[in-house]
């Protein structure tokens, strides 16, 4: 019974969203504002998990919504709007990465690089977990930061699928649609990504 109610609510929201999309497609900025409010956290969150800092995530989110408004006429409604937004977000993040790569902005820092500044600790020291007791950390909010940090150490394509699958809770099909990858590729990539993340989180997970 509860399940039926949820389905009806989802349908009503879907129908409502369709109207809003049509209004926004006709150039109604106010209608598009409703869509922004509805999806901004989702888009920003995915962008933040992928790029790893708030400024870039904000820029990506802005670009995503502007691109969404510009290409809304191409949205045929065959997939959910959220999936479509995920796709735009991933493409925008990839563009950002390639742009940073062209401009020589290397996001990868060398762990072995010697730091001459005595006040600033070396990168390897800052990455080393200062709290040796994982039990207490896992119990607290800092565990989330550790996961985020370890997530950023993954390969970009592993990071994408981990974020979409386990944080955003998308299905395999939705991930395949958002990343434009075959379903089998998505499944194997999720498996490898989980394995890689588990390897990096091994110490903490055992203690937990």
């Amino acid at each position, binding site marked *: 019974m509860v399940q039926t109610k949820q389905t009806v609510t989802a349908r009503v929201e879907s129908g409502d969203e369709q109207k809003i999309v049509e209004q926004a497609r006709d*150039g109604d*900025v106010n209608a*598009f*504002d409703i869509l*922004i*409010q509805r999806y*901004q*956290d*989702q*888009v*920003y*969150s995915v962008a*933040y*998990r992928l790029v790893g800092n*708030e400024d870039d*995530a*904000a820029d990506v*989110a*802005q670009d995503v*919504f*502007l691109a969404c*408004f510009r290409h809304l006429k191409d949205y045929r409604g065959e997939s959910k709007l959220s999936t479509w937004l995920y796709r735009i977000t991933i493409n925008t993040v990839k563009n950002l990465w390639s742009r940073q790569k062209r401009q020589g902005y290397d996001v990868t820092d060398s762990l072995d690089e010697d730091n001459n500044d005595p006040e600033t600790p070396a990168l390897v020291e800052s990455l080393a977990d200062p709290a040796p007791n994982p039990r207490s950390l*896992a119990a607290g909010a800092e*565990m*989330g930061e550790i*996961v*985020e940090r370890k997530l950023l150490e993954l390969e970009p394509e592993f990071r994408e699928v*981990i974020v979409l699958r*386990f*944080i955003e*809770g998308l299905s*395999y099909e939705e991930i395949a649609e958002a990343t434009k990858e075959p379903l*089998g590729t998505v*499944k*194997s990539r*999720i*498996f490898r990504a*989980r*394995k890689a*993340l*588990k390897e990096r*989180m*091994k110490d903490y*997970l*055992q203690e*937990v």
Partner: protein
Amino acid sequence: MSDERNIFDGPNGDDGKELTAEERRLEALLSEMPRRRCPSHVRENVLAALRRQMEEETKPAEAPKAKVIAFPFRRRVFRILEVAAILVVAAVGLRVYLNVRPRAQIAPTELASRAEPARKAGEVAGAGEKHGLPSRFGRAEEEIGTGRRAEGNEKRPHAKATEDRVSEKAADLAKAATPVPLSAPDATKGLDTYVEVADKAAKEVRELDEKVTPKKALEKGAEVEADLLKQAVADVHRQAVTVTKSQAAPPESESVVASPARPLAGPARSLATRPVPSIAPPVKAEVVPAAQPAAPVRSGPLAASAPAPSVAAPSAPSISAVVPVEAAAEPFTPKAGKAEAEGQVPALVAEDLYFLQGDLDWIEIESSAPVQQQILARNKIDEIRVPVEPTPAQVAQLADRETTWTQFVQTSVASFSELVNSFGGAITHTQEVVVMPGQRRAIVVECNFRDTNGNALINAVNQKRMVAVSNIETQRAKLLLLPAKEAGSAGQVTSRGGVVFQSAPEDARQRQFAPGAPPQLDNLQRARSRGQYQVSVQRMNEEDLAQRRLPAVSNFFAQTLPPSQTELYANQRAAKKSQFFVQQSLEQRRDVAGQRLGYAYTTQTTTNAPAPGGLEVSRWGGYAGTSNEQRGGTATTPGEGATSGRAAVTGTIAGQQAAFPVAETQLYFVLEPDQLPMQVIHSATQVESVAR
């Protein structure tokens, strides 16, 4: 592999087997991660950008206040435009057709009427030629009779009548020209008499025309015909002057002469300043026999002696005629010009004299007072001056030009010889020619090559249009090969670039191709690849070239002869070698890379003279200015002289030449002075740059 199987065998793909406790904890940690809150400025920025964008899009849309057209009309608007365009084209075409049809459809009666003036014109021309008049007299008459009738004369009977009257009157004028006394003492008198007759006749025709048709009713075509009449009268006048001059041979003081040249005032000034185009026009060389002196380029004492057609510039003032006469009797002909150009014009018009209708301030001429009055009346000239003798400086300048030309010949041939040598060839013959149009003096150079090296030189000269600038001051010759501007080509050269070819030592470039065979020069590419050539590239512009201390008149173009001229020239050369032709064919020539150079005209000949290399001489001439002599092989039709050649082959060379036949190619190039400033040396200390 087992992991992969686990992924795809399970109901959920990657959860084929039970998740471990660590994995479950990890997934739980990930799913519990809070969603990040999007900063508010993101939404604000996006909305502001969108609103700004919408405003920008709506503003220009409102400005034109576009009217919405009904959709069916919009669909048909292109069709309507198409139909309108077709109608316009049809209307224009119909109008053109209606204008042209009267010319195409000539009635039989009209044909007869046209034949009559033509017959008259023939008679007049015959009469004129009898007394030394050129055929142009008849041509002018014919033009009046037929050429202008196509202006829709059926609609204008008075114009047709005027036309006939013009024909008759011109014929009368020609008749009137014949009885002019031609003896020497009466030459001037006859001329004046004739001028009066011509004026009288023209006046009669004009009065007659005004009686037939009022002035206001004259159409534009009639005005044109009136102009034609005036022109015809002037032509007759000038022809009569020529008759008087050439047949009566009056004393020099009574002569009125003109030489073939360009128009006077305007073109004269333009001649002094106009730049010569960077790409020379297609070469049409007229081979001048060796015994005949070559015609000069533009000025100088030889210029007046060349019988040349007149060249009228479009921008010239209205100069009515240019009549060639022997200028030998007039070593320094009259001058004319405008006052402000007095210092410039006389030197350039020293060889020219016209009956002028241009707007000139003065003219220098020796003639009787009545003739001078007529000249003043017919030309807008304020003053007639008595010509002065050429100053020693002018004479020296003309002499210097000849010296300059001689130096150019020597230097350009020497430097081009260096270029030919660098490609493994040698210059075997040079000859001065006159290149049309413009009667430019040039030099034809015959070069002897091995076949492939000749093609390489053709490539270098033909495709890149090299301008060779020689610098043979040093012992090791350096040649600057400068590609000129070539519009439309893919590798268009915007500024002059120079390629310096430094000659390699002679022995380094020689190679023995077969045992016992004489050493041959290797081709350019092979020598360059072996490091035997030093090639460097440098860029320079014309100013740099002008500032370089080059030897005088060392800048020249090198171009190949066109096929017809190559054939002509090769045949002339062959005739001098006492050869006669046996077989002719057309073959395709390709260069080393397989690129087609063109079609070669091949003529197999049998030589009368004993050939050292064999019996047959096949001659190549054609597209690329190539002439090829192949020696070796067997004769198909041996002549008398060939018998000795065969004996030479069988007796002495005995197979070596047959095994390694050496093909020799003759290339013909035309060397012309470049458009870069030529240096005219007046003395050892004074150097002046003038245009070519």
